[in-house]
């Protein structure tokens, strides 16, 4: 039934062309024993993007068209498994072939969306208290190379209150992949995790498939009513892979070599984040490394226009100022009555602490108030900002009150008197 073609006409970059008829755009094919997908048709000339790269492909290699688009198997058997970007197992387990679903499916109908209104608890005070993560939110972690963003992601994966975690790794260092796997196994989270991992040495085309694979699976879990958290690291590698492919295909670059559709291709992935009426939800946390700590670089810039805020990871902690969760207002009013007040009060004081710190470094005299702020800032950074802190929101808020009480008089905090009366820790308790 399947016709085999053995005359490859050109091999440029990862793209091969062959003359064939009746081929559909987007269909899957086998070139030798590597998967490939149809990216362009011109009369009978078919261009194929070879997933494993065209290295070593010969002009007489067999090309077989499979007559179906790229698909991924979906069932509960996925849980606990690890795959590569083409959906092939990485963990010595059996290949899954049942219930194949297409990847990169259509967009969600906006009129079926609901307003995000449920908080996701992560146990990390800088997220829970100050920039609450909301179900169905899409948030990038802006970071520079060398920051512990993967550690942060695995901690969120372990601690977040969700049903399923889908991890998409793009251009990961092999050590990082192993670290993810070991951390999740040790933490006992592997049982509700699916991993699609592309490591730095794998073929570049597979890198661009990882988000689609991860999100197609996530979408099915969400339709089943599960709350899914998708972790993507690192989206800059994804964009760079797209850039590499676009340039080899002689597309006109738009900005710093990136293809003109960078915004659309990032958006179509991030926009998969959704809270479905009467079913589950998809929340996306993606890492975007900023080359040279430059937020105007095309990848973080386009990402910022798409996502609902961002976490800035700097010097090993989530920066309270650059970070923003645009949806936090939707949830932090109904967690505990002091949530917003503690959040605002502490951030304002922390900003003043930064000013005092600057004054101090410039050699100005420290007033009594400055000393108080310095003490507060130190405690704040040690007890709340440190990424290894893992406490529930309520405990974090109580801890916040304790720190405030330790450093200030109630009227110095700018917090409403009624709340202070209720929450201010008694001195002897300290």
């Amino acid at each position, binding site marked *: 039934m399947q016709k085999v073609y053995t005359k490859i006409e050109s091999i440029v970059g990862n793209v091969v062309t062959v003359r064939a*008829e*009746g*081929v*559909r*755009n*987007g*269909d899957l094919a086998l070139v030798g024993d590597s998967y490939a997908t149809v*990216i*362009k*048709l*011109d*009369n*009978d000339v078919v261009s194929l993007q070879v997933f494993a790269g065209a290295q070593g492909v010969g002009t007489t290699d067999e090309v077989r068209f499979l007559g179906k*688009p790229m698909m991924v198997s979906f069932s509960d058997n996925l849980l606990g498994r690890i795959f590569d970007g083409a959906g092939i197992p990485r963990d010595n387990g059996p290949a899954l072939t049942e219930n194949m679903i297409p990847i990169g*499916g*259509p*967009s*969600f*109908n*906006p*009129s*079926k*969306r*609901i*307003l*995000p209104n449920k908080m996701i608890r992560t146990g990390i005070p800088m997220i829970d208290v100050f920039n609450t993560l909301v179900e*169905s939110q899409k948030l990038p972690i802006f970071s520079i190379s060398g920051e512990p963003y993967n550690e942060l992601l695995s901690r969120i994966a372990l601690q977040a209150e969700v049903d399923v975690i889908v991890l998409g790794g793009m251009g990961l260092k092999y050590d990082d992949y192993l670290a993810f796997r070991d951390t999740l196994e040790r933490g006992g989270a592997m049982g509700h995790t699916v991993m699609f991992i592309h490591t730095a040495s794998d073929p570049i085309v597979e890198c661009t498939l990882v988000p689609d694979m991860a999100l197609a699976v996530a979408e099915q879990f969400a*339709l089943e009513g599960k709350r899914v958290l998708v972790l993507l690291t690192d989206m800059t590698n994804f964009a760079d892979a797209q850039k590499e492919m676009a340039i080899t295909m002689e*597309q*006109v*670059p*738009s*900005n710093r070599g990136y*293809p*003109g*559709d960078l*915004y*659309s291709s990032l*958006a*179509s992935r991030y*926009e*998969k984040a*959704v809270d*479905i009426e009467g079913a589950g939800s998809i929340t996306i946390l993606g890492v975007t490394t900023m080359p040279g700590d430059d937020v*105007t*670089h*095309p990848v973080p*810039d*386009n990402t*910022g*226009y*798409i996502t*609902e*805020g961002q976490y800035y990871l700097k010097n090993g902690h989530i920066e309270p100022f650059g970070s*923003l969760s645009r*949806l936090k207002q939707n949830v932090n009013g109904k967690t505990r009555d002091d949530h917003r007040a503690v959040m605002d009060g502490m951030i304002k004081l922390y900003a003043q602490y930064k000013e005092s710190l600057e004054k101090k470094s410039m050699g100005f005299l420290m007033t009594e108030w400055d000393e108080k702020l310095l003490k507060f800032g130190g405690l704040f950074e040690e007890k709340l900002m440190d990424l290894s802190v893992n406490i529930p929101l309520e405990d974090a808020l109580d801890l916040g009150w304790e720190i405030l009480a330790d450093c200030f008089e109630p009227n110095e905090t700018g917090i409403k008197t009624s709340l202070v009366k209720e929450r201010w820790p008694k001195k002897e308790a300290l």
Partner: protein
Amino acid sequence: METVTGYVTGINGNLANVKFEKAVRKNEVAYILVDGKRLKGEVIRVNNGIASMQIYEMSNGIKVGDPVEFTGELMSVELGPGLLTQVFDGLQNPLPDLAEQCGFFLERGVYLDPIPDREWDFTPSVKVGDSVEAGSIIGSVPEFQFTNQIMVPFTLKGNDWKVKSIVEAGMHHVRSTICVIENSKGETMDLSMVITQPIKHANKCYSERLRPDEPLVTKLRAIDTFLPVAKGGTFCVPGPFGAGKTVLQHSEAKNGEADIVIVAACGERAGEVVEILKEFPELIDPKTGRSIMERTIIICNTSSMPVAAREASCYTAVTLAEYYRQMGLDVLLLADSTSRWAQAMREMSGRLEEIPGEEAFPAYLESTIAAFYERAGKVRLKDGRVASVTIGGSVSPAGGNFEEPVTQATLKVVGAFHGLSRERSDARKYPAIHPVDSWSKYKGVVDMDRVEDARSILKKSIEVNQMMKVVGEEGTSSDDYTIFQKGELLDAVYLQQNSFDEIDAACVPERQRLEFDIMYDVLHKNYDLTEKKDIRAFFNQLRQEFIDWHGTVFGTPEFEAQQKKVTEFYLSKAAN
């Protein structure tokens, strides 16, 4: 008419090449038949007997040889009663109906009727024998608080048409023939309440264009007083991400004093559209006492929907706007964001392998943007009524850098520039419009000379602030320090508004005039204060009084009491 057919010869992304027989037109709509589905597309180039089509859907599964049907019609929308309150995608598909039919996801190849299938209470306004031409009103139906006028199609050619028959007043189905017209050659045409209008041609059924000279009130002090927008004018809102473009546009959609508001969410987040959908039906228009949703249409082609349809969505929106303008209404069109629209053009241009211009945008970027904004305007219709379309587009410049091509091309053609600044939004100043860098060529609600004067004080205040960073507060004279504080006061209590406060979020023009008068006087008084500490304390106190004033409802005794308090306070310290 005979259908022209063809077949696919090549496909690259969302661009298909089609071999055709007989005649095709550029920009006509065609359908590719794939697996029993009809995928809509538009012919954008004809070259050597091959028509290149941009496909408004995902192009997976199309193969060489798939049949193509050409319709002979230009890309069009349907206009008629029942469009208000609806949510459409860029091709005028009603999204809620689509959800009912296809479920959670947007299935491709499904096109639904944008005009609700129902009857309307029609009242004719012409009689047999009356002359009509394109855009003539033949009757009306009531729709919410509006009188939706039924018009002769704007595309009708010739001016020798006469009414041959017209139905009686009463309930008629929206698509039934209500009127027949005939021209001198004896050709007849059946008219229903629905008309079809191509989206890429400006509707010119008016007798003349007028200068936009009347302010379109947005109830934002920074705009209405300092950077006004005129009815029939254009304005753009560029800003880096997170500076509040969308929040500002939503506020304009809510409070803008237009009859009809059309929101085009073009390539932006779906979540933002959901906010409008959930929030607007609850909000009441103070002028009419009805839900503001009843005057709103949403065109929603979010970032994850196919790119080609995004390009169409802005045109769809402006065509709807022109339709309501023809009814004598003032229409406000808000497009968010025109950068995404320009990027859609860039993607198509790349696929067509055109020679790229700056940042790979096509060379026709500027003329296309200009042509879009030029569809705004205040016009005198043929029956003498004056109506307008106002267009406000947000721009998302890469890296927040206003030098990029889309921002620059837009600035050339708009009448007002509301540049958002990252510093102001980081400092939580709302609206984050930069008061000195931005400009407007329109007349506002307050005398412009005095506004200029206030702005010059603000400029001076910013200069003093810069200087103070170098020489410190100690090295600044009391006079300069007073100017600095005056500028800060103007910024804090006049330019900024508290969007969370129901009263302060919408400031009516009468109130703006009154507050500006007082503010102007404050700025021009000298004060008997020499110590900086005292100056600071005075302005802090004054700011507090102003903010409390903003919290009172206009025209109430509390309002007047607080006004008195403000005035007495600053006059008590004023020098003679």
